[in-house]
């Protein structure tokens, strides 16, 4: 295939071959599409599962409650507080002078459904497709939000830990000698720390939120990439083109990141999906134990722990299990395809 352009980037023949290799792994390709579909979909969770309508037509004007909070008085109600669109009286008011478009799932992750008619958790029904949890919240809505936070967390953590890990590995591999020796010994000690206990202790000191958890887990997750990058740099530092660059007087930093890193990136990239799935697992287990996201936040781990606490309501545990298994499998399949795509034995034909 001819070299073309994609989003302004030139597609080199090598990139083209890699794309072809990726495509050759069918399982990886559909995993990637399915994952992208679920992830991009979950980014619009507010439009899919929400207790507010996304469009209201009332008395000749349009309102978008997702973006702006309107007091009940806007629609002829009595209270100056934010409108509760699930309230039958409010619905009646709006329907009298217009209409409203509700999202597919008319519950947000925190919406407590008051008119279930039976004690929560309730099994799946036409109203709550995956049932409700023990606090009368819709499981499907919580699942969508929980999936989003898990994946976002996994990707962000992967991003930051690869930055730190690549930098650390590059420095060790490039300078070698004592730098390498001391850094490696430090990492061996650091790696020996009981990570989970430390996280639990730290989580009891600070109030855990997204960024705190990210920071705490970053303290330990950056090490996963160091080995690969270090090995690549140890190999590359003796290449003649690196020596030539040094002979030209190119600065160490520039040599590391302009001349050596692009060659080390191949090995690094294939690791990223696996790091992401590892991050998601860690977050889930923290949530399961109750040391993760703040109470009330939707998360896969919290769903699993509800499932454990309510064995009489198997839809909770099963939903959590299947979704987690799906996400992790998809990431692993994508990772396998990416590994194939960057395999030099396959690209250098």
């Amino acid at each position, binding site marked *: 295939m001819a070299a073309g352009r994609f989003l302004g980037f030139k597609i080199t023949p090598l990139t083209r071959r890699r794309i072809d290799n990726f495509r050759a792994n069918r399982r990886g390709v559909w995993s990637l599409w399915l994952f992208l579909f679920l992830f991009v979909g979950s980014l619009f969770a507010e439009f899919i599962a929400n207790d507010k309508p996304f469009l209201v037509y009332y008395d000749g004007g349009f309102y978008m409650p997702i973006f702006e909070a309107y007091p009940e008085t806007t629609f002829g109600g009595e209270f100056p507080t934010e409108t509760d669109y699930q309230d039958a009286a409010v619905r009646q008011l709006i329907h009298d002078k217009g209409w409203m478009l509700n999202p597919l799932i008319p519950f947000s992750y925190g919406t407590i459904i008051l008119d279930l008619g039976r004690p929560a958790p309730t099994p799946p029904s036409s109203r709550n497709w995956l049932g409700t949890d023990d606090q009368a919240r819709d499981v499907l809505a919580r699942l969508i939000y929980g999936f989003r936070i898990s994946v976002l967390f996994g990707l962000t953590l992967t991003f930051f830990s690869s930055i730190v890990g690549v930098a650390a590995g590059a420095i060790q591999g490039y300078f070698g000698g004592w730098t390498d020796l001391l850094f490696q010994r430090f990492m061996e000690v650091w790696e020996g720390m009981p990570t989970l206990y430390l996280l639990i202790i730290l989580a009891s000191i600070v109030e855990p939120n997204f960024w705190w958890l990210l920071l705490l887990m970053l303290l330990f997750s950056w090490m996963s990439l160091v080995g690969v990058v270090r090995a690549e740099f140890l190999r590359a530092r003796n290449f003649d*083109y690196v*020596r030539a660059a040094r002979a030209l007087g190119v600065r160490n930093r520039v040599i590391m990141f302009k001349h050596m890193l692009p*060659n080390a990136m191949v090995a690094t990239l294939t690791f990223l999906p696996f790091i992401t799935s590892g991050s998601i697992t860690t977050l889930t287990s923290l949530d399961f134990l109750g040391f993760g996201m703040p109470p009330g936040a939707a998360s896969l781990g919290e769903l699993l722990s509800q499932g454990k606490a309510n064995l009489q309501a198997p839809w909770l545990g099963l939903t959590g299990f299947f979704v987690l298994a799906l996400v992790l499998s998809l990431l692993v399949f994508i990772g396998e395809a990416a590994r194939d795509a960057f395999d030099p034995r396959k690209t250098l034909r």
Partner: protein
Amino acid sequence: MWEESATSAAFCMAMVEKAAQVDKNTPLLSVRELLVRFKLGDGLAAALSRGPSYLKAVDEVSFDVGRGEVLGLVGESGSGKTTIGKAILRLYEPQSGSIVVNGVDITRMGDRALKHYRRDLQMVFQDPLSSLNPRHTVRTSLRTPLLLHKICPSSEVEQRIDEALTRAGLSPVFKPRYPHELSGGQLQRVAIARALTMSPGLVVADEPVSKLDVSVRAQILNLFKDLQAKFGISIIFITHDLRVARYLCHRIGVMYFGKLVEIASVEELFTAPKHPYTKALLGTLGAEGENLDGAQVAGEAFNPAADTTGCRYYARCPMRVDHCKTAHPPTETIKPGHDIACYEWRRS
């Protein structure tokens, strides 16, 4: 200790002053008692048992390179030719000795200060494919030194790249190509063009033709010869092929396991070699014979890791006497421009 550093500081100052008034007679490069050693047997166990042992890849070698001079370094594999070349560019850190360029000692210079002198020293490596970054186009590879040393305004960069390529005998159409798209000879021309972009005073050419096809070798050798004649650059030409050295060089230094055993002008070396090793080498050349890789110098080779004090050529030497075993012969000048390290050279 303190006195020593004080005197060395004064020495540096003197050097800087000296550099300001470089005259045409000071050699471009002056290497004195250069020692480069590599640690053998890494690890804690080796260190505890007997202390680290070292391989002296370059053992107290001294020579000068004049302006516009081509110095050949010949010797077998492992004789330390390449190590000398890389040490001169500070790609290996020398253990002791000094490297003086244009009257300035760069042996212990820090990276920042060294950058300025890098312009004067360039290297062409043995394997052209590995000496160019596989992910950089020819243009990027040639642009790096121009921008780094601000050799010309950025508007002229493209023009300079074209010039450099043309000088090296390549058409500018090669600019957008990647190294894997070029042949060995073309790549070596790119590497030469890169070295020349900075208009260096000295180019270290580390066996630049040994990885090339025979048909291309002559072209590259002629390119070196032309460039040398046209721009008056000095070249240290490292090779294991005596005929190549004879064709290109003004002077030739013969190395044997880290020691420079004989250095003389080409005519002198080929007509009146004094060191028994040089003689053995020339003997193998014979009738359009093989190069040194196939050379059969009789006798047992020297073990470079062994810490011998005697002459390294002792085991093979036909002229050996007892005191050759106790101390390595010092370098003596037997004629202007002809140095030799042998006790018994008069006998030959």
